[in-house]
């Protein structure tokens, strides 16, 4: 260890005095309401009580967890085991008509547009241009973050719902699609 490191170590060994009670209560008065905005939940002073609660909750959940895993594996195995193996015979795939794989306009592979129309009862042609709308659900202040430059910025997260409405006047059909979306904004902060 060189001499500079020794000095460094000596200095680190000196502890600054904590703020006095008078000063802390002065700060508390000055903070006012702002001082009670963020609270910390302190741990329960009785640790044995915690352990008994924890162990009883574990005793409750472990059998349930094992049962859930068993049910899951049983259902998976019954699902994978075909009731009639002839369903998956290669001859069935071989007899598919060529028309079922050749329609590029169809949204479903292997099904033509006309077949889709017949099966679903939803017309393929005759839809109006879709109407889109953006709805703001909420804005969340996520506090202060550091930008890559090191400067502080306040982060806001906006939750939107994007709505798209398709209308088919001939059949009076309306299809409403909703998609959630988030946007994050960073607003640079100046201390003063």
């Amino acid at each position, binding site marked *: 260890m060189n001499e500079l490191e020794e000095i460094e170590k000596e200095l680190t060994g000196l502890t600054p005095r904590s703020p006095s009670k008078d000063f802390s209560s002065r700060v*508390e008065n000055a903070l006012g309401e702002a001082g009670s905005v963020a609270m910390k939940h302190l741990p329960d002073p009785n640790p044995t009580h915690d352990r008994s609660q924890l162990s009883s909750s574990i005793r409750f959940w472990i059998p349930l967890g094992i049962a859930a895993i068993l049910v899951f594996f049983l259902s998976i195995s019954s699902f994978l085991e075909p009731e009639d193996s002839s369903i998956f015979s290669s001859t069935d795939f071989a007899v598919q008509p060529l028309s079922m794989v050749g329609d590029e306009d169809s949204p479903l592979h292997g099904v033509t547009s006309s077949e889709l129309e017949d099966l679903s009862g939803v017309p393929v042609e005759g839809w109006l241009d879709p109407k889109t709308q953006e709805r703001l659900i909420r804005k969340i202040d996520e506090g202060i973050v550091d930008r890559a430059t090191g400067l502080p910025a306040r982060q806001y997260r906006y939750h939107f719902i994007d709505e798209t409405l398709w209308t088919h006047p001939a059949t009076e059909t309306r299809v409403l699609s909703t998609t959630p979306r988030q946007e994050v904004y960073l607003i640079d902060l100046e201390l003063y």
Partner: protein
Amino acid sequence: MNLTEPIWKTWFAKHGGKLLLFARQQARYPDDAEDLVQEAFVRIWRLYGHTGEVSPGLVYRAIRRLAIDWARSLDRRKIREDKVSLDSPLSSSFDRSLEKDERKQALLRAVEKLPKEQGEVLTLKIWSDLTFDEIARTLDLSLNTVASRYRYALQKLKDSVPREIEGKPQTHTL
């Protein structure tokens, strides 16, 4: 039992002493240190305290800027005399246990004699636990400047402390 405590109290108990030490260096008068810390901390906590987590660097920066503002207003008034800190040595900001330790006292006297720009870097590095990068941002300096000031400060302490101790009368001999 659902016990709760304002987060600022835990935060302040951890960082308050370090902030006071830094404020003491930044303030023109030692008596202003508490006012500086209170003003800076309250401002920052009111802005960001609801998040429950405030970066100490923000408060250090606020202290520095406030100290500059206050010094400017004092310059304009030109009222007080510069009392320096003779009536309140740096050691008064540390635990009382070191009052009997001559070596540590000498070390702190030497810290106090450092040029201000070296002393503030040393304080932020040693007692505020800031990284060089955080210090550079707090003091608006480059990383290289911060690192070299820190090195010069340590070098000066190394050179000056033994001389200071040797110059004192040896009361414990005989």
